[in-house]
């Protein structure tokens, strides 16, 4: 058992190098401020399963997660306010059959997961759709009207 639970963004109480981490965060924020438009790209590693990628275009916000072997019927995606929740199970039915099987390699994992993700913009909850293809979950979330880029025409006098 590990003495320190890995919770990088949560409570840092008891984590020995939290001062250093704080400094790193500070440097990140300076770097992001200098980099300007990329400031929104957060490359922080949360360590929470599943890892997700978020992207956007003018209309939608897209979330993708690699979930090979996830049970489609048990995948749950829900949006409440600005938070997206993912819940599900990755199962290897054939390995459940018996632990006494002789394994030559055992690298894959099975189990359940649950994760909440804060969305950077407001989304239109009614329009959210999700698809699961080739083991990749894609959630498409239309941006709320107020979050969409509003193009203003410039009139010439």
């Amino acid at each position, binding site marked *: 058992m590990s003495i320190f639970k890995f919770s990088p963004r949560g409570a840092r109480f008891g984590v020995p190098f939290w001062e250093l981490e704080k400094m790193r965060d500070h440097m990140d924020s300076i770097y992001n401020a200098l980099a300007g438009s990329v400031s*929104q*790209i*957060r*490359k922080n*590693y*949360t*360590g*929470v*399963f*599943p*890892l*997700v*990628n*978020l*992207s*956007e*275009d003018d209309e939608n*916000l*897209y979330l993708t997660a*690699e*979930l*090979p*072997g*996830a049970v*489609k019927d048990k995948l749950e995606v829900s949006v409440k306010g600005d938070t997206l929740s993912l819940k599900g*199970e*990755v*199962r*290897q039915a*054939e*390995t459940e059959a018996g632990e006494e*099987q*002789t*394994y*030559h*390699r*055992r*690298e*894959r*994992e*099975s*189990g*359940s*997961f*649950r994760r909440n993700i804060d969305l*950077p913009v407001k989304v239109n909850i009614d329009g959210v759709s999700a698809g*699961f*293809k*080739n*083991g*990749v979950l894609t959630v498409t979330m239309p941006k709320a009207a107020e979050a969409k880029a509003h193009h203003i025409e410039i009139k010439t006098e």
Partner: protein
Amino acid sequence: MSNDLNVREKQEVKVGAAENTSDKPIFSPMVDIWETDKGLMLVADMPGVSPEDLSLDLSDNTLTISGRVAPAPEGRKALLKEYEEGNYYRQFSLAETIDQSQITAALKDGVLKLELPRVAPAQPRKIEIKTEDDSAPAGSCPHDNG
């Protein structure tokens, strides 16, 4: 089942420079291999790979699994990137006990399943011993062929 899943970082592999023609990284898929009654079962996680983009190659007792992921849709701006998308590549050397002509593969939900059956055990076969008594003329030596 109550165990929670942990994040496992993908293992990037370095394949010969000529192999990688795309700018994507190449990962080694996680696999399970276990014994079955008939032979071996190999299961590999390859999320994002469609059956058309999967290739299985068998030569000189080496099984090569490679898969390409579909390119990300154009015109999207990344906001958060926790994982990298990439292609997959891994090689296995097969034991001689595997019947290479009988390998079957299936890809579903990003999980590749390969059945590797063992060579059927040699069937006991009775070898008939012909006696030359009936045909050979008496007195000829059976080892003398000319």
